[in-house]
């Protein structure tokens, strides 16, 4: 069996795990990877550095419950072994570097009167400042 990490960087939030599990039947799509999550014993997908790991015993239970092979010896058996995922701060830096000079999506959202407003129509022919601020989170 592959050596499992002793310490974990983060635990997947249980509230989100439950919500996603209910919708996805135990399989969560995260960062373009399919990850299995345990709806009862907290989310067992964890991130250590830039790698995602899981608790193998919990994984076996969940996989068994989904009718998949219980004969797992490694997270690699279900494609979970050492998935390379940039940390959130790295991804954000990457995103910021990549977005300058690129096209912003022309979204539609309701304005303060409930009327649908399209971004390109708001912008017009002059420079534009768009701010996403914290409301009620």
């Amino acid at each position: 069996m592959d050596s499992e990490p002793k310490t974990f960087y983060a635990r997947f939030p249980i509230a989100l795990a439950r919500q996603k599990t209910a919708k996805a039947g135990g399989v969560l799509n995260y960062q373009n990877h399919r990850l299995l999550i345990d709806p009862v014993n907290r989310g067992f997908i964890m991130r250590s550095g830039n790698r995602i790991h899981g608790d193998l015993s919990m994984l076996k239970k969940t996989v068994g419950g989904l009718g998949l092979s219980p004969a797992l010896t490694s997270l690699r058996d279900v494609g979970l072994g050492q998935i390379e995922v940039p940390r959130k701060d790295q991804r954000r830096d990457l995103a910021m570097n990549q977005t300058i000079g690129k096209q912003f999506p022309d979204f539609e959202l309701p304005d303060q009167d409930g009327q649908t407003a399209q971004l390109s129509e708001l912008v017009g022919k002059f420079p534009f400042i768009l701010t996403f601020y914290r409301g009620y989170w």
Partner: protein
Amino acid sequence: MRHYVELQEELAVNYCKLAVVSVDAPAVNDAFRAGLGARFPFLSDQERKVVKLLDMTETSKSRGVTAMPYTFSLLPDLTIHNLYCGYWYVGRPMLDELRRDLREMMRKVRRDFEGPVG
């Protein structure tokens, strides 16, 4: 948000525009906007469609998926000229930084930026 209210007069003189987005309902935005005396639009991303599309969310145990503050300086064709991640308060743009962005963008899009074109 009050400093944007201060900026709105200046923007109007330059024909530049400003809009803000929150995850609050339109009615909440309307009340907030009226209280501030703002004239620019307050958009509502209650479903968090746009903030998720742009990967501008964070996840916490207590609050679930929450939107993070960001500011974008956009050219008229929606090309991103500059952006500011406001996760930390000091990451949010000062008015002078926005003025600098607006100056640079105006220089790009207005042939008459340096005066009337002869």
